[in-house]
């Protein structure tokens, strides 16, 4: 399903975090959003997820997302892995992944409290699926470990797996390899490739590691001060004078 942003804008006081941002994420593609610090990449994700009210239009397929609250957007198949790890620290990896099933499950206070058979079956079924996803993400060994006891790289990986466990159509990854070791990075890159191939989801990737982005993305959108300064396949973006200027401060 295509994700399209049209003229999306967002202000924080005097700061224009997003200024008429438009781009399309083709179904099943890896689409990178890059730009210097403070360019508005995370704000872009926040806009898509419905965290902030924005101007313009954001559509998933033919559903309009702007104006919807975050939990409804999640239910429509948009999943997000956060730049700053946003997990439940005291809870186990399994519990953290199970939260991602929230929009796919239905047990409420009453039915869970009564321990209805329907609830126990649902729990069991989703636990199996979540365990599969954990194995796929290389987290099988730490399922019962509290997240707070994991290494930084592993927590990043849980963040990724949790987004995956939402069974999304569009996966928003905000700097998924930041702070990882060389080997952890390689594993995550392989994981992103596999996710796209096996599950067929579209991936929107925010990342500062240029070689990684150039190797992974089908298309790249470059933001600077909240504006799109370039958009196209990696080869096109790499040569773009505005991009060179934004990154290197070079003058033409």
């Amino acid at each position, binding site marked *: 399903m295509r994700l399209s942003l049209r003229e999306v804008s967002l202000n924080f006081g005097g700061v224009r975090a997003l200024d008429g941002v438009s781009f399309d994420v083709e179904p099943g593609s890896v689409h990178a959003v890059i730009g210097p610090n403070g360019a508005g990449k995370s704000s872009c994700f926040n806009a898509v*997820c419905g965290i902030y009210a924005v101007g313009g239009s954001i559509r998933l397929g033919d559903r309009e997302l702007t104006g919807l609250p975050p939990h409804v957007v*999640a*239910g429509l198949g948009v999943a997000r892995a956060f730049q700053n790890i946003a997990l439940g620290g005291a809870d186990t990896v399994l519990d953290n992944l*199970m*939260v991602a099933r929230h929009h796919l499950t239905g*047990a*409420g206070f009453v039915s869970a409290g009564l321990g209805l058979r329907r609830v126990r079956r649902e729990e069991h079924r989703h636990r199996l699926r979540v365990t599969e996803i954990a194995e796929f993400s290389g987290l099988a060994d730490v399922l019962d470990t509290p997240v707070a006891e994991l290494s930084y790289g592993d927590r990043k990986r849980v963040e990724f797996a949790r987004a995956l466990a939402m069974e999304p159509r569009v996966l928003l990854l905000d700097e998924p390899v930041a702070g990882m070791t060389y080997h952890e990075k390689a594993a995550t890159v392989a994981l992103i490739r596999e996710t796209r191939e096996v599950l067929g989801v579209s991936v929107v990737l925010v990342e500062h590691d240029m070689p990684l982005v150039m190797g992974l993305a089908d298309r790249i959108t470059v933001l600077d001060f909240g504006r799109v300064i370039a958009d196209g396949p990696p080869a096109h973006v790499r040569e773009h004078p505005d991009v060179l200027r934004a990154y290197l401060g070079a003058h033409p």
Partner: protein
Amino acid sequence: MSRPTSKVTRYAGTAAALLLLLAMPYYLDAFWLQVGAFVMAAIIGAIGLTVLVGSAGQLSLAHAFFLAVGAYGYAFLAGEPGAGSAGTTLSGPGLPTTVAALLAVALAGAAGLAFSPVAGRLHGLYLGVASLGLVFLGQHVLFNARPVTGGFNGRPIPELSVLGFELTGDEPDLVLLGVPFGARERLWYMALLCAVAAYVVAGRIVRGRPGRALRLMRQNPIAAASMGVPLRRYRAGAFVFSAMYAGVAGILIALTARRVVPDHFGLVLSVEYLAMVVIGGLGSVRGAAVGAAFITGTPLVLSHYGDAIGVFARPGEDGIDAATAVRLLYGAAIVAFVIGSAQKGRPHAITITMDRARRALPGVSRRRLQRQGR
């Protein structure tokens, strides 16, 4: 993952504890049974609060208010019109007592729901302060709505009965295995049943889908919303849940005390419940139960035996009387517990202390064995 053997021992332990609790009325006198009923009522109330404060992260100082709604709701709905003390005239629809009890719980839930526009928008300290208003509102109503509440002197509590069998009274006579089952014995069983049910239900909720959603909501609301958790609904849901648990607890307190008075449901009670869930470890159902037993049971027991110990001043004499000594003692104990858990950087004060004690036990007995061997 727990090994099957440890599961078996855990089940065996639970079964043994339950059997012990079931057998208590054969061994304990009326005083202890009454303490037990108060403790079990507090356990229910504290479990409701720990889910709200510990899991959902919604600080509430309104617990005394919801306890009062349960207690007075039952007293009024089951009460007959008549003359109260100090010249007040009491009104009351005189509903069948079981209906009155269910309605009183529903009423507490409805009060929680009515507060949920506030509870859904605020969190943390802000909600704590806002919820404080409910306690003051409650106190005002309890003292002044005399036909309903009986005012300063409160209202008597009708016995709870099912089809003519009093669950909390002496009618009709019942003797089991040579022991007369009077009001206190029956109350003990009813309170036990309610407490066990409340414990099991809350445990399932906390471990299940709602509990996971609440905990992530506490730690990172934006992440929870992005996972599909409707924040306002869950904040409100946690409030209603905790209000209904408070309602049940309030009814049990009323049935045990046999009379409700407004003074009991002041801010101090709210703070006591917060203390229960804090020393038990926020969010821990087991901890809340232990904390409730400690905070409720200790003062009752100590003031009962205070006279026997004989170091305390009698009422009217100078010096520290038993009730004051109790407050000092358990105040100190709370501080000790909280410091102990804060230093460990872990929240489960009492349960950790218990676990540590259990782990230490084999060592102690080993040392004792060595000493005997020598």
